[in-house]
């Protein structure tokens, strides 16, 4: 009895619940094509190739830059310098004592 009263704290729902037609009760004459995305890789081989080439070039450039930074070689136009590059630059223009 206590369980039933606990369930009815928001009031006893009236049966039968009146039916409301929120959406029209009929099927559409079309389907969405969202489900069939292609997994065929040969269709976009050009894009895949350019993406992989881009990443490869990036890794090569990055490793080259890191090597130059480690050696302290100054790159013209470089804004972020390593400590070795900074020391080289500062030794070129020392403070006047």
């Amino acid at each position: 009895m206590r369980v039933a009263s606990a369930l009815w704290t928001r009031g006893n729902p009236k049966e039968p619940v009146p039916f409301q037609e929120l959406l029209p009760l009929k099927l559409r004459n079309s389907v969405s094509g969202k489900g069939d995305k292609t997994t065929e890789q040969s269709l976009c081989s050009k894009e895949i190739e350019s993406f992989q080439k881009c990443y490869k070039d990036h890794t090569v450039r990055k490793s080259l830059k890191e090597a130059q930074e480690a050696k302290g070689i100054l790159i013209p136009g470089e804004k972020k310098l390593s400590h070795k590059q900074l020391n080289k630059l500062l030794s070129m223009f020392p403070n006047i004592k």
Partner: protein
Amino acid sequence: MYNSVPLQQHALMSQYPSYYVKPVFKKDVQEEMIKSGEAQKLAHVPTRAALNDQTSSVYHDDIINVLINYVMKDGRKVLARELVEKTLEKIKRLQLERYHKATNIEDKNKIELNPRVIVHKAILNGKPLLQLSPIKRGGVKYQVPVPITDKRSQFLSMKWIIEAGNEKDRNTRFYDQLAVELIDAFNNTGRVVKRKQELHKQCEANRAYAHYRWS
């Protein structure tokens, strides 16, 4: 003279000093080097001995050698090589069976009978284009899609193929299952290709996190 030859990276604990270069053991590469005059440069450079899986045999195959090394457990290379060779034999048998069952010539011509070609294409078909890497931002780990190097992609493909070969019931042999998986991957179907596509799907679902790679 020594300075003209690029020094190659060597592993730690190598028996060779760093100026020893790696041997050129493939016949076609050697012939090319002789033609271009590059062989002359190497004539008096100290060279390492070839490893025992590096031969100038016509059956030498880089990718299959790598596959053998990935199959190997506890350094038992002879066993690993035997397993891969049995796999190649099984592939040949399965494809020949299909070949003889086919009735018309068009169907027969479509069937690939060279097991090495099948292995190569299967590994190529299993290679993912992206991978997910966990990156921590604000105390939460995000699975971020990042580009993948060719070597890692090939490793993942081979790993998935070997794992698929190991997933079997007790009565089937590893090499039989591996052969089936390789043929499936060659035809762009099966568990390995599905796993690759699942990874691609997950990468696409997590595309919103892609910028965490650099920010």
